[in-house]
């Protein structure tokens, strides 16, 4: 089987790398698949474009980079502009509705939006937007199981923030499931 290719793009500080880390950890440690995470980011720690590339496979992964993502998650307009042309035919865009206007997306590609920034603000902590995105990703793509994702969240976020991050994860998950049921499935 060819690797499932996922790219997550956004700005430094949005938790892009941690989102990739949770997805990869869920797949490789708890769903017993193979996963590889490659992170690329500019020299600036905050505010610069950054991206995480995650591959998931049933067999060991050889080529470690995403060449043409099947799933693209964009948390900033820049990331959408830069990476959406890379989406393969039949690919899926997931995006933060508050940060990204997906106008100009190639016809034939599916897109699913989540108001991640607003959800995070409603929880009182803008930093948890990446957990909302991970929950949303889990619901929409089905690439990682909910149980695996929950374990990976618990292993990744600082223990003192687990309750808040879990709520964020669940908000994203619920939103994704509702969207799928409204649209009659994936």
């Amino acid at each position, binding site marked *: 089987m060819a690797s499932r290719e996922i790219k997550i793009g956004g700005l430094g500080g949005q938790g892009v790398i941690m989102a990739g880390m949770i997805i990869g950890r869920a797949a*490789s440690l708890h769903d017993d698949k193979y996963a590889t995470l490659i992170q690329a980011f500019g020299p600036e720690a905050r505010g610069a474009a950054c991206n995480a590339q995650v591959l998931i496979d049933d067999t060991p992964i*050889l*080529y470690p980079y995403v060449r043409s993502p099947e799933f693209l998650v964009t948390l900033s307009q820049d990331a959408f502009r830069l990476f959406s042309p890379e989406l393969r035919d039949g690919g899926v865009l997931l995006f933060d509705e508050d940060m990204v206007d997906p106008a100009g997306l190639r016809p034939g590609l599916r897109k699913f939006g989540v108001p991640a920034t607003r959800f995070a603000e409603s929880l009182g902590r803008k930093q948890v937007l990446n957990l909302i995105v991970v929950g949303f990703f889990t619901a929409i793509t089905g690439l990682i199981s909910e149980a695996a994702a929950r374990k990976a969240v618990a292993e990744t976020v600082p223990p003192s923030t687990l309750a808040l991050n879990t709520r964020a994860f669940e908000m994203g998950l619920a939103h994704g499931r509702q969207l799928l049921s409204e649209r009659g499935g994936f």
Partner: protein
Amino acid sequence: MSASVSDKGLLSGRLFIDGDHACAEGAIAAGCRFAAGYPITPSTEIVERLALRFPLVGGTFIQMEDELAASITAIGAAWGGTKSLCVTSGPGFSLMMENLGYAAMTETPIVFVDVQRGGPSTGLPTLPAQADMMQVRWGSHGDFRVIALCPSSPQECFDMTIEAFRLAERYRTPVVLMMDEVVGHMTERVVIPPPEEISQEPRRITRRPPEDFRLFEPRDDLVPDMCPLGKGYNIHVTGLTHDERGYPVLNVASQDSLIRRLKDKLLCNAGDIVRWEARDLEDAEIAVLSYGITSRIAQRAVEMARAEGLCAGSFRLLTAWPFPEEAVRALAGKVKAIVVPELNLGQMVIEAERAAAGRCAVVSVDHAGGAVHSPEVILDAMRAAAGRR
């Protein structure tokens, strides 16, 4: 949780970590308790993790003023009786060359790590290369030899760091872990066995009393024992050509016997040191010889070749130095061509060509660094070598 920490601070279980962190954990698992470095991308995460973890296991990390200081400090710590590590990348590795030779000459058991990035000079700090492969073999002056290992995944960064310490202690020699930026920064599953299942190579400590002990007198395997410090053994360690007591003897006979033994020490024990991995070579017409991150891309190319009916196989160097000369020569007698992709403009291919000695074609698939090869480029070279263009 997937991983646990023992009461001695040792980690085990299943982790999702990058190769740099895996290397740091491998060092801790091997019993290394001293590291020195001058942080440099893309190796910084190794010393960051050691700086965080060492205090929990009774180890010490010192950030030195530069790589000369870092490497000589680690050598000093090794002589003090602690398994020691120094960590760097290209520009720092150049500065460590003098002390790499000093460690070889003084037969210091020590591990160097070079996480290779694009060069020469400061080059491409955050991007990969494999262009220090000849530097590790020839970069210090004089006829020195070291062992060099090439991991291709975070799991192998862990496993080979332990192996590097085993070899360093067993053969009283510097061992260099030749990582690359991709392997260092990629995150994958790493399984760390329980501490009781990891064997730590003990130091070769003499059983002789101080009056009968010579610090550079080889045993049957050409490796001399060391002695405990602070127990009445008076020793002298020098980079000058020395006799078995360690005292400078600057003449032809002394030079000849010492330098030949340092060479033979690694070559005569090659059976225990040199490792490679052969895949799909039984019926292969074309072999791909590779190492580090490139070996994974090469394996993909081999699978693509097989899918189109081209009988290809892979020969992966786990040990780059000493080079598995006889195995490559035997391989060259069986295949039509050996294709050598690497992230440099042709380094290990020279060695492959030398070992093949005209028995088959040897084809370089070079790359100046900054990214990995496309599998298709390697596949094209295999097709051409098989006469299928």
